[in-house]
């Protein structure tokens, strides 16, 4: 048995091996960053001891910006130069804008990428990915200052009900902020992790997550460190802001405000939030809004917001059904998100699930804490941990077929990663191209679903109608991101895309934005890339050599072994030189030659997992 090691407080036992990782809750109203220190996950505070960062950005005309409390203060002074609730625009097109009330039509323009851009009074123009990226950068800086080093990777949470485009936009924002994303994690799953690990909670959990602008409900089974999402549902455009809006609407009516007075409406929103927060602890408040002075009671605002809460319960019912779980099988209900502080929400949720909801962990912080735990595992600080998160896709993925109908290829609540293929054929003689329209959603008509991407498979050999065999494969990875491959199987003509174009940025656009944001000279960039390639080459050589030593003889034929060996030697030589491209190529050759070997090794270790346990059980 190893001797116990006692370390300095605040340091891990092996400081040189401990890599810095953080979990980020990028919220509509507030954001947080958390990390695991001395085995405990905690959110990080700013110099003033404040943990939450308002997701508000103030842009100045000289392109400087400030994020958080300072920006929020500016909201009352120059609202036209401050952007808040940007999460509502992530992954959305201009066509969706009528549903999003935070931004008036004259503030939004169509940008090059098809995304909406926000134009501020000082003519500064920002797209949602840029704004989110500025928030992320601010959070990451806080972590790096507090922890005293560069972050090796982050886990960023997204609403479980976020669609593909919204997820991709979030990942793009992180990339733009120069952060390595270890995983996009669903917010309710993150909350379950925090509860499961902190309190050792097991059984069926319903996670009710009502944030500022989104609502999620996830049903999970927690068992021996495995967090299995059974079903998830919600509304990615419903949240506590809607409470504020409903109350603001009442205020505006009382004060007889002109419907075009944007300033007054914004003030009403701020006032509404104050009233809502005040009425969580007291029964009545005095209200002075413009010319109107009056009193509002808790009962009164509860009447105003009840229809919104009821809407969330309808989602709960549907999601339980999808999970195949009856209400009385739910062991625990966990409350997440600031809006679950509203007493009516707690009352109604308790009545619906027939168990008192848990709020042991601060509903504002629980998501960031769960994300930090996952980040710590993924960065490799806790390699032998049994924790495993099994998540699902929230919305069905489909393809447009004849007559504008959406055919589902992967139904909602399918565990990820997953791949599914469907065959299609041509409907005209001699047809050589086929348009493929990827959609997401539950409705039968394509127009009612969300359009994710359109692409064309060209070069199909001319045949009679119905003779071509076009196989369309959807692959969803562990982040919930989709890749689509189309192939004509008789001829082997292929086309594949990573789904992103509809309202997103292309990879080139991101690279350009990243490069322009670097102040370094080009030479510095190249030196850095060369260094990185050499490190990568060394890593590949070490990993593959170790694998060969371990079971290369066992799993490979002599020729296969020799081929890998010689490509390794080649890489070793090349990596002494100064050509980035040559090293890249040599790495690629090693990976190509050793792919089958790596696959067999993985199969062997997976099979062992099964056998090892069966022996244990006897």
């Amino acid at each position, binding site marked *: 048995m190893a001797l116990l090691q006692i370390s300095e407080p605040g340091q891990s036992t092996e400081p040189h091996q401990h890599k810095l990782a953080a979990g980020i809750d990028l919220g509509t109203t507030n954001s947080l960053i958390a990390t695991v220190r001395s085995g405990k996950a905690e959110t990080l505070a700013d110099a003033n001891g404040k943990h939450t960062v308002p997701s508000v950005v103030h842009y100045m005309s000289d392109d400087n910006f400030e994020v958080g409390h300072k920006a929020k203060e500016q909201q009352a002074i120059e609202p036209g130069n401050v952007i808040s609730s940007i999460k509502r625009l992530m992954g959305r097109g201009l066509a969706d804008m009528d549903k999003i009330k935070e931004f008036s039509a004259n503030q939004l323009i169509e940008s090059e990428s098809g995304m909406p851009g926000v134009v501020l009074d000082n003519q500064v123009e920002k797209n949602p990915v840029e704004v989110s990226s500025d928030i992320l950068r601010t959070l990451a800086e806080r972590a790096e200052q507090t922890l005293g080093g560069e972050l090796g990777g982050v886990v960023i949470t997204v609403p479980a009900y976020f669609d593909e485009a919204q997820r991709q936009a979030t990942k793009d924002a992180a990339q733009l902020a120069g952060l390595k994303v*270890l*995983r996009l994690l669903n917010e309710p799953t993150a909350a379950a992790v925090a509860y499961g690990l902190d309190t050792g909670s097991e059984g069926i959990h319903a996670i009710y997550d009502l944030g500022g602008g989104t609502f999620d409900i996830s049903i999970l089974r927690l068992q021996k460190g*495995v967090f*299995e999402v059974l079903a998830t549902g919600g509304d990615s455009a419903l949240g506590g802001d809607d409470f504020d809006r409903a109350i603001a609407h009442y205020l505006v009516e009382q004060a007889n405000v002109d419907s075009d007075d944007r300033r007054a409406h914004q003030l009403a929103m701020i006032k509404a939030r104050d009233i809502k927060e005040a009425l969580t602890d007291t029964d009545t408040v005095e209200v002075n809004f413009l010319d109107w002075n009056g009193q509002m009671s808790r009962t009164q605002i509860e009447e105003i917001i009840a229809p919104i809460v009821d809407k969330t319960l*309808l989602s709960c*019912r*549907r999601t339980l*059904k999808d999970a195949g779980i009856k209400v009385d099988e739910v062991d625990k209900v966990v409350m997440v998100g600031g809006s679950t502080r509203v007493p009516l929400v707690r009352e109604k949720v308790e009545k619906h699930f027939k168990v008192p909801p848990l709020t042991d962990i601060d509903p504002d912080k629980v998501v960031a804490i769960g994300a930090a735990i996952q980040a710590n*595992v*993924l*960065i*490799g600080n806790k*390699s032998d941990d*049994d924790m*495993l*998160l*099994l998540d699902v896709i929230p919305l069905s993925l489909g393809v447009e077929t004849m007559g504008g109908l959406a055919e589902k290829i992967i139904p909602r609540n*399918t*565990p*990820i*990663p*997953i*791949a599914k293929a469907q065959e299609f054929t041509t409907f005209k003689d001699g047809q050589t191209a086929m348009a493929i329209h990827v959609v997401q959603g*539950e409705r039968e008509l394509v127009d009612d679903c969300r359009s994710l991407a359109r692409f064309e498979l060209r070069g199909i050999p001319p045949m009679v109608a119905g003779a071509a065999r076009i196989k369309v494969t959807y*692959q969803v*990875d*562990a982040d919930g991101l989709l890749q689509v491959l189309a192939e004509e199987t008789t001829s082997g003509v292929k086309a594949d895309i990573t789904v992103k174009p509809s309202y997103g940025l292309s990879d080139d656009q991101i690279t350009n934005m990243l490069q322009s944001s670097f102040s370094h000279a080009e030479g510095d960039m190249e030196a850095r890339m060369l260094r990185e390639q050499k490190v*990568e080459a060394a*890593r*590949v050589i070490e*990993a593959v050599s170790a694998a060969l030593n371990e079971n290369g003889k066992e799993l490979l034929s002599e020729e296969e072994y020799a081929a890998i060996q010689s490509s390794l030697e080649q890489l070793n030589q090349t990596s002494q030189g100064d050509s980035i491209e040559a090293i890249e190529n040599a790495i690629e050759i090693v*990976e190509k030659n*050793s*792919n*089958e070997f*790596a*696959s*067999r090794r*993985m*199969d*062997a*270790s*997976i*099979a*062992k*997992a*099964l*056998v090892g*346990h*069966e022996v244990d059980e006897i």
Partner: protein
Amino acid sequence: MAEAQRNYFELFGLEPNFFVDQKELSSKLKRLLQSAHPDRHAQGGSQQQMLAMQKTTRLNDAFAVLKHPVKRAQYLLQVVKGIDTTKDHTVNDPEFLMQQLELREELDTLAQQKDAAGLMTFADKIEAMAEEQEASLGQRFEQEDWDLEALKVSIYKLQFLHKTLNDIELAEDKILD
């Protein structure tokens, strides 16, 4: 290469058989994913992560097939006898065809009347029929010499009942919206 060709039953360390202990299957999946899941390979290179995604995808796929009685039966016939029953749908059984029509009509009426309670009772009835059909399919697979025609018909009947259950859910969803 040999490993990649292992069938879904073999992946889970099972003999090809219609009877599958669902609880055991589910706990085996979790054990397999403990070593295959991409989160377990987050520190590996891109090649390793890609492989982990592929292996997990295959395990998830295999699990979905072995879990579902219709898919499992079809897969079993495919693996053992090389027969594809997923495409061919001709059943010459007038009595069953008649029953099919009647059930569809009953569903359509309930859906049109937006009768949520009626749909629930109807779902219970179909579920009972599906259970019975599944048991009878299981018995056919138990026989030493498989009666392929009878198996095909039996699978088709079960498939029809599952499809009906699915349509009941869609009808219920529409009432909820």
